[in-house]
């Protein structure tokens, strides 16, 4: 249970530190904040030590709490030797780092932020190592990437910090995605994300054909995290972070997460050819690249960073070898590395802060000014070099031993020993260098602070502790191994292994020779450094950060270009795409379908019909031919509309004829209103190729529609309409079935339809109100004549037309339920009659004579229609249930009352108001600052 606490405590700590920072900002409080931040890790450490006995009994403590079983994501914790080892490293070194930071950040008010983030990070790390559920582990995995991003960008004012942070996030984040994929696959293969189950399912996993992919993805995650070549590039640039961060995240803990993962999954996925090849090769390359580049680094942290990379490679290599002993060596070296690399970083930090530089070409002979630091540094440096009696010596020797034991495959047998020896040689060289170059090697060269600033001695405590730890490991390896590492190794092997025999290791001859070679070679190499540096300087300077940034920038530019190519603001292009998308699949589908001609027999051709069809087509084609001269095009368009109307009228659709007719005229008037602001002609601007493209598109579209129409028309019709014809009178109370459908059977459609009309009008109002056109778009101004605006004769007649038109519209409205007509058409007739007044008498003149609040009228219309619908609730029927009654009252005679009529009234009101609102607003565009009432 309290394993959860292990993870949860640092969160509390982080929150506490955050609050403390809010409460007491400013540098004076750094010590208190540090003390506060120390609590959580310390407690965790103690808890862990408390677990030791149970761990030593070899049991794996597992505690599971269900979270999202649906995706197999549980809050599951696991504490076994491996996780215990890592947890101890994380918390232990964490404590020391915090102590170190207390001095490092002394007098900086960024300290608070550091303490918050470092504890968050601790949470993440503990989460990784203590998770039993792989998905759950992934949560923390990503969290480490994120916190690391924030910590590398800690000093965000510097460009390097920002870039380094982004680089690490992109690389490790990408790795995280790969890992997600890998883990999901693994989960699918095993059927669970619980590590226990996975470790138990080794055979299923390795025999599954998705194994290679799974392994590759998981290793991608691990390699990116642990800075394995070629993903190591981010680590050196992570050195932009403050030294405590580098020491903790980028040497001791986070970069070990990948190694942890490999070690953790080794029993499940290990000992296969693929595993060996992928990991050992990566490890070897990383080992060598790191060691070599480190040699030539002048920046202390840079050198340490590359040496870290090299050591990570080393451990990876060992893990790749896969034998228990190799694993033992790996984990042993992992501990050693943590113990000697952290203090070296701390040393670098102190040197940096006191002298103000990290360049080893300037920093020399510090032994005079900081002897204590020098004395402490001897141990970790020696350990890193792998001098006898040092922890590093043993781990190196273990490595050599293992390298000799590698049997299969052939190439590795000889290559690996040589390889590791050379790498060892380099490591000796750079270890010697960092020590000698910093503390001896003559006089310092123009350092920013000389003599160096004083730092409180307390800052050395964490170094001292770590150094002594390192020394202890070197002197008493067996004890260290037995207490710390052995449990971990057993955990990775899932069995209690025999203890590692260091006595035997001491006997081993060949490894001893190899390390001797490495040491001597390293020393010689170091002595010959200056000519080598000279050569190295000749080599072209490669800055990974710049390469990365450049590639990123190029990708972005490429993306931009591509996007702009596609999304280039050409409406016609988009429309062409859409048409192609519509035509291509449909035709593709219909290519195979030969029987266009359906079974039912054709109706006879009649002359009038053909005549109408021909004229319809001619007028449509005419519109195309004339579309450059806009007004004639409009005339032809209205001819088309007229013949559509005639078609409706001929084929038994009087309602449609009426509607089409009224709509057509209103549309034409609106278009002309707009046209008076637009150019009167369209220039001929599309080239021949374009015209051909469009013509073929148009032709294809037309053919498609024609084929569809023919195919459907020649097939028998079996529709639900019988019901409407049968129920229109008894159920809907009207003989005009179309109208009954509109106001009753499908009244809901009509409600939506008038809403559309209303919205359109309101929208037009909304976006024309601030649009006052002083000048027209183009040379249509010439049209504006001196003729009187409102010819008397036109006025007189149109005024007389109005009342008649109103009567007619009343008639059309009232009979609509039984004969062609209805609210919509009546509304349009009214609107048209009033439009005529606009045209004849002028907007202002007409506005004075009528109520011009169209928007509320639209609202009213919609509300009337809706209210009619709601009314039926009170009689217990659903929305829009119609009710009607045929009355035959004594005096009045026969008449009918129908709620449908009320609904139609709503339609009528909306239509009138909407149409006039649009026209009025278009009309007022010209009247500068519109006289009379506001239109709408």
């Amino acid at each position, binding site marked *: 249970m309290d394993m959860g606490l292990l993870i949860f405590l640092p969160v509390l700590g982080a929150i506490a530190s955050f609050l403390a920072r809010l409460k007491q900002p400013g540098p004076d409080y750094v010590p208190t904040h540090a003390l506060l931040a120390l609590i959580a890790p310390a407690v965790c450490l103690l808890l862990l030590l408390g677990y030791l006995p149970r761990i030593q009994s070899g049991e794996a403590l597992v505690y599971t709490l269900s979270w999202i079983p649906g995706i197999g994501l549980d809050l599951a914790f696991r504490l076994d030797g491996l996780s215990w080892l890592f947890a101890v490293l994380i918390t232990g070194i964490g404590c020391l780092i915090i102590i170190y930071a207390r001095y490092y950040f002394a007098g900086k008010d960024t300290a608070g932020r550091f303490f918050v983030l470092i504890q968050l990070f601790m949470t993440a790390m503990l989460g990784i190592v203590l998770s039993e559920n792989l998905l759950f582990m992934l949560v923390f995995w990503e969290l480490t990437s994120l916190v690391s991003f924030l910590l590398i960008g800690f000093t965000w004012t510097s460009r390097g910090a920002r870039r380094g942070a982004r680089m690490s996030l*992109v690389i490790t984040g990408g790795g995280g995605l790969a890992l997600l994929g890998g883990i999901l696959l693994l989960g699918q293969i095993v059927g669970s994300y619980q590590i226990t189950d996975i470790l138990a399912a080794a055979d299923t996993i390795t025999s599954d054909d998705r194994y290679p992919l799974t392994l590759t993805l998981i290793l991608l995650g691990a390699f990116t995290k642990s800075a394995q070549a070629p993903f190591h590039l981010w680590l050196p640039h992570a050195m932009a972070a403050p030294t405590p961060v580098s020491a903790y995240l980028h040497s001791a803990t986070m970069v070990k997460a990948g190694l942890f993962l490999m070690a953790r999954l080794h029993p499940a996925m290990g000992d296969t050819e693929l595993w060996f090849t992928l990991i050992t090769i990566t490890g070897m390359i990383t080992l060598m690249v790191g060691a070599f580049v480190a040699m030539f680094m002048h920046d202390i942290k840079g050198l340490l960073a590359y040496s870290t990379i090299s050591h990570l490679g080393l451990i990876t290599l060992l893990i790749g070898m896969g034998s228990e002993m190799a694993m033992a060596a790996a984990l042993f070296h992992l501990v050693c590395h943590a113990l000697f690399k952290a203090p070296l970083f701390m040393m670098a930090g102190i040197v940096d802060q006191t002298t103000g530089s990290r360049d080893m070409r300037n920093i020399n002979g510090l032994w005079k000014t900081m002897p204590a630091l020098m004395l402490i540094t001897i141990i970790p440096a020696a350990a890193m070099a792998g001098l006898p009696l040092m922890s590093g010596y043993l781990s190196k020797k273990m490595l050599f031993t293992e390298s000799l034991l590698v049997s299969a495959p052939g190439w590795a047998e000889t290559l690996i020993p040589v390889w590791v020896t050379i790498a060892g040689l380099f490591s000796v060289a750079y270890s010697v260098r960092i020590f000698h170059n910093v503390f001896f090697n003559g006089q310092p060269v123009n350092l920013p602070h000389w003599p160096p600033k004083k730092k409180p001695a307390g800052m050395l405590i964490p170094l001292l502790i770590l150094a002594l730890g390192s020394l202890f490991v070197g002197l008493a390896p067996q004890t260290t191994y037995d207490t710390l590492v052995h449990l971990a190794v057993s955990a990775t092997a899932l069995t209690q292994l025999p203890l590692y025999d260091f006595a035997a290791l001491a006997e081993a001859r060949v490894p001893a020779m190899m390390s001797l070679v490495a040491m001597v070679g390293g020393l010689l190499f170091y002595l010959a450094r200056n000519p080598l540096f000279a050569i190295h300087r000749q080599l072209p300077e490669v800055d990974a950060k710049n390469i990365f940034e450049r590639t990123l920038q190029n990708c972005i530019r490429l993306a931009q270009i591509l996007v702009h190519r596609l999304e280039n603001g050409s*409406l016609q292009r988009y429309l062409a795409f859409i048409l192609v998308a519509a035509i291509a699949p449909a035709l593709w589908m219909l290519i195979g379908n030969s029987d266009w001609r359906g079974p039912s027999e054709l109706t006879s051709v009649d002359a009038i019909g053909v005549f109408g069809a021909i004229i319809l087509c001619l007028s449509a084609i005419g519109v195309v031919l004339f579309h450059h001269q806009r007004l004639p095009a409009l005339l032809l368009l209205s001819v088309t509309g007229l013949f559509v109307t005639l078609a409706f009228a001929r084929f038994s659709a009087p309602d449609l004829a009426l509607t089409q007719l009224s709509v057509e005229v209103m549309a034409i008037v609106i278009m002309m209103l707009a046209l008076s602001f637009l150019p009167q002609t369209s220039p001929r601007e599309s080239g021949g190729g374009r015209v051909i493209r469009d013509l073929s598109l148009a032709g294809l579209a037309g053919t498609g529609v024609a084929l569809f129409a023919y195919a459907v028309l020649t097939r028998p019709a079996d529709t639900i309409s019988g019901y409407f014809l049968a129920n229109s009178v008894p159920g809907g109370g009207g003989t005009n079935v179309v109208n009954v459908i509109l106001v009753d059977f499908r009244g*809901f459609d009509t409600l939506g339809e008038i809403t559309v009309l209303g919205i359109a009008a309101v929208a037009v109002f909304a976006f024309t109100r601030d649009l006052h056109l002083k000048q027209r778009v183009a040379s249509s101004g010439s049209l504006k004549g001196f003729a009187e605006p409102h010819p008397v004769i036109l006025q007189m007649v149109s005024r007389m037309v109005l009342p008649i038109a109103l009567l007619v519209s009343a008639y059309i409205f009232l009979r609509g339920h039984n004969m062609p007509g209805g609210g919509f058409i009546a509304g349009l007739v009214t609107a048209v009659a009033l439009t005529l007044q606009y045209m004849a008498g002028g907007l202002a003149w007409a506005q004075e004579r009528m109520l011009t609040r169209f928007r509320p009228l639209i609202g009213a219309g919609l509300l009337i229609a809706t209210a009619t619908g709601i009314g039926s609730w009170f009689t217990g029927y659903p929305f829009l249930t119609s009710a009607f009654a045929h009355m035959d009252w004594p005096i009045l005679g026969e008449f009918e009352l129908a709620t449908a009529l009320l609904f139609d009234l709503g339609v009528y009101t909306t239509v009138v108001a909407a149409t006039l609102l649009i026209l009025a607003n278009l009309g007022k565009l010209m009247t500068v600052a519109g006289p009379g009432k506001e239109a709408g």
Partner: protein
Amino acid sequence: MNHLMIMPIVIPLITGAFLLLMYGYNIGRQRFLSVASTLLLVVFAIWAVMQAGVHDYTLYHLGDWQPPFGIVLVLDRLSAIMLLLTALLSLFCVLYASRGSDEAGSHFHALLQFQLMGINGAFLTGDLFNLFVFFEVLLIASYALLLHGGGRARSRAGLHYVIINLVGSALFLLALGILYGLTGTLNMADLAQVIANAPASDLPLLKAASLLLMVVFGIKAALLPLLFWLPRAYSAASAPVAALFAIMTKVGFYAMVRVFLVVFGLDQAAPANDTVMAWLWPMALITLTLGGIGVLGASSLRTLTAYMVIVSVGILLATLAMNNQHLLAASLFYLIHTTCMTAVFFLLADLIGRYREAGYDSFSIISPLAHRWLLGSLFLIAAVSMASLPPFSGFVSKAWILQTSSHLPGYLWLWATILGSGLLIITALSRTGSGWFWRPGERTLKVTPPLDRGRTATVALMIAISLALSLFAQPVMNYLEVAAELVYQPAGYVDAVLGDYIRHDGEVNSSEVNSSNVNSGEVTQ
């Protein structure tokens, strides 16, 4: 008949109409009405979710005409979820807009209500032509909202958006015509059964019609190559509008699910939707890729978010094309997540833009900004969720999608594109974050405008939803699992809607007179 069910359509309609009637209302009253109505919508949506949790299908016979003759509304888990999502989203948008962006033009709230009416109608209707009508309602409203506030960028983008959608509507009518001409009905359930029993000679035509519908819905959902209107339109719209538009593409997705899986999917043995799915799959993957590239290439946060929308559409449609029940459930979960987060980002772009000295939400301009820490943290959290990193809903949804798809053929394509686009998103967002909050260095504004708590709270709340969605994912997932299961049992849908109606004794039905009108005499007296 339970009238609560039609409320999601009627309430916004009444509110919108009333706001027009009271066109003189000051902005305060408008806001009050608008917020009140949206709150009501949330309430009714919650009711709908619970109702659908109890009864698989709830029907509403408009005008008391039984389907397929009258229009019927169908409430199931799928539509309920969409209703709730819409309601919540719109609530946040209204709240955000009420902090001032609604004053940029007239009738913002009325138009927004009409938009909601359209969206909810599209989610509820069980009639294909009625779906068309509600599409038009939500479109015309969206046109108006898109242009709200004016400006040439909006005019241009709006013009493209409108015209493209008009072409889309024409295609929709074409498809409707073909379907009606061959099946003689419009009710989705009835269509489904007629299509399932259609003669072989009609099948190619029907499938062609379904392909036309794919284009129509593809335009709404922004499927390649129909999506080029989207980036400009979304980045031109005012923040709350763009945020609301986050649901619009999902309407297209929803329509595809309903039409392709139910109407064309009844015949499980030889489904008529195979052709559509075959076409949908590659197009969706390309859409997804292009979206990722666009995210990387975007030059402002709004554009970036617009491409996020495209990415999400790609994922949704690709998963739909894989045509698997459990995958559908997963992608529905993803839909909820992505809708919230894209909305958050549109609002965030505006929120941060207001506090940057120059450049609003542009990446190219380096400008000091106020409230660096608060906005920065907000952005960071939002970005983590958007990049579907744990512990947010995005992680859960993606994990679920990848898991469920891993059994299906071609899953590697899906994985590659999803994970790849994920990397691109992380890259883009890290650039944005560091560019906005780190790059300006210590430079600060001359005058620090006070933080707009209302707007900030709104955004924070929406992000919190994303977190909550992952913390309490399991119940939601269970709900969606059943929702998807129902979608993949079209027979159940058809039975529920049509009852014992079979086309060829339609006469039996037509002879019986609509019950409501028998006793309508006293209704009118």
